[in-house]
């Protein structure tokens, strides 16, 4: 065997190993469950397929599982435990850290919960989850489940993309609200009237110059003031206290809070009622 052949062979072996590894890693991340499990049957079949395709596309592209689960019963668990367990025991999550995010909607007591894992914890901070839930909750409460889930999926995509720049959306760094043209117009009109009123008010004031004197200060004989008696006595004290206004931005430091699920994995997330 020549040196040339040895080189070729080892190159081929290396390639084989790389291909094998990548295939096994990919299959490792694959779950037997679909990324949309509509247990409570909240959305129509046709919409379901569209939504599933969207979730699959985002998940594969971002290498972070984005999962939506609906259920009629939490089986006696808390929403948090149900969401964590559903994620852990159904094999969701990419890579060795099980990167992913799961939205659980339970119709039992109208609970919703977002559970994050692995890279999902980093990409979806507490402030970020608050922001996302603020966006989809109105639709969820109204019963527009497809809209709510679609919004959720879109925002997840956006948040993961942002996190990959190294600066995940967090306190002080949340996505921009769209430009509110109507509100801006109202502000502009009010500001316009205010400026006009102030400026024309000043112009009007230029026309006025007649004013009675208030006192006779300019006729005080300089140095004529004598104080004969001066006494200050303390009378009483009034004390009042006011409860401090709680800062709404209590999580001002940002980041994600985490807990450990029944499987021993670390999860982040938040939830509530809708």
């Amino acid at each position, binding site marked *: 065997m020549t040196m040339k052949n040895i080189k070729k062979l080892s190159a081929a072996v290396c390639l084989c190993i790389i291909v094998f590894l990548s295939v096994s890693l990919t299959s490792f991340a694959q779950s037997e469950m679909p990324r949309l499990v509509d247990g409570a049957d909240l959305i129509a079949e046709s919409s379901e397929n569209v939504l599933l395709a969207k979730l699959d596309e985002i998940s594969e592209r971002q290498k972070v599982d984005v999962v939506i689960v609906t259920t009629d019963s939490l089986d006696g668990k808390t929403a948090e435990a149900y969401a964590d367990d559903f994620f852990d025991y159904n094999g969701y999550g990419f890579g060795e850290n099980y990167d992913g995010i799961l939205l659980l909607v339970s119709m039992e007591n109208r609970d919703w919960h977002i559970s994050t894992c692995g890279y999902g914890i980093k990409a979806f901070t507490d402030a970020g989850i608050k922001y996302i839930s603020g966006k989809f909750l109105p639709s969820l409460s109204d019963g527009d489940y497809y809209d709510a889930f679609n919004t959720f999926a879109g925002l997840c995509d956006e948040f993961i993309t942002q996190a990959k720049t190294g600066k995940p959306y967090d306190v002080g760094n949340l996505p921009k609200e769209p430009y509110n043209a109507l509100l801006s117009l109202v502000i502009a009109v009010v500001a316009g009237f205010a400026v006009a009123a102030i400026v024309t008010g000043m112009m009007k004031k230029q026309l006025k110059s007649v004013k009675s004197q208030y006192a006779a200060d300019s*006729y005080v004989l300089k140095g004529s003031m004598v104080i004969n008696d*001066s006494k200050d006595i303390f009378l009483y004290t009034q004390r009042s206290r006011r409860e401090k206004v709680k800062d709404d931005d209590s999580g001002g430091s940002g980041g994600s809070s985490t807990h450990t699920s029944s499987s021993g994995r670390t999860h982040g997330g938040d939830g509530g009622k809708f």
Partner: protein
Amino acid sequence: MTSPIEYKCPSCGGGITFDSSQQRMKCPYCGKLFDIQTLEDFNSQLSNELGDDMNWENSAGSEWTEEETDGLKSYVCKSCGGEIVSDENTAATSCPFCGNPVVMSDKFSGSLKPDLIIPFKLNKEDAKKALNKHYMNKKLLPKVFKSKNHIDEVKGVYVPFWLFDSGAYANIRYKASKVRTWSDSKYEYTETSFFSCFRSGSLRFENVPVDGSSKMPDDLMESIEPFNMSDAVGFNTAYLSGYLADKYDVDETQSIGRANKRIKKSVESAFEDSVIGYTTVNPESSNVRLSESRVKYALYPVWILNTTYKKKKYTFAMNGQTGKIVGDLPLDKAAYNRWFWLLTAFSGAAAYLATYLIWLWLL
């Protein structure tokens, strides 16, 4: 047996009683507690209070001599009733107050001879220049008013003033407070301590002027103050040459009220300046007594111009000594509306752009 002293609550004025459980004086109405010493001090402050005494000794003006009145002419305006005086070499043709023709009355008569006069320092040219300047840079002044301003008709008039000299003795009680704030983890605390501050002392006023002519609006005359008394000289009819003089028709007793009011305000604020170290200071009671008071009758130099615009009378006055000029001007309603809507449109558009730029860069 001595009758018990009744103490009043310094906070609400209610009758106060001794609270045996607290061993202090307690107000049954507002619940505040006081030491007896505090209430005694407060009562002694209250007993210092006397009523205002603002009477004046009156000795203003003097009688004219025959020689003096011989050289003077008196005019009466048939339209507004104004009476003006000039020397025999100055002919008055129109009334400085209303612009209508005046007629000479038979003989100069009555009223007092002024004690003092401040001669004119600024001439008619100065007055015209000042008036032109007064019209300048006023965007809402009607253009027509500027062009038809009758500036040539500005007249130099000696306006009668009563001058009040007096020492003012004051007993003033102020209620003052100090505010202290601090906070712990749960609450923000505000502590307000109240004090009663008594001041007694004196202050002297000289030459507080009150307009003695009913034809001259008081606010207009107060607006061109102050006149500088260092230029005042003893009255002599020679100063009237070339000018008109107004005779007083509001006497000194009618004018005292205005002088007293201004003096009292100045006394209160002067003593208030000595109440220091507090967050708020408000006078609660003040008594001002005047003594060694004197009234003088003086003529002050004023350039005046009366014009009518759209059936409304506008009067301008310039201090003939310092050049200070005042006079309210008419408003051009059309110009006002134009400016208002243009400004609204432009600043509104600018604000709209600003909100967009803020959204673009800052949010």
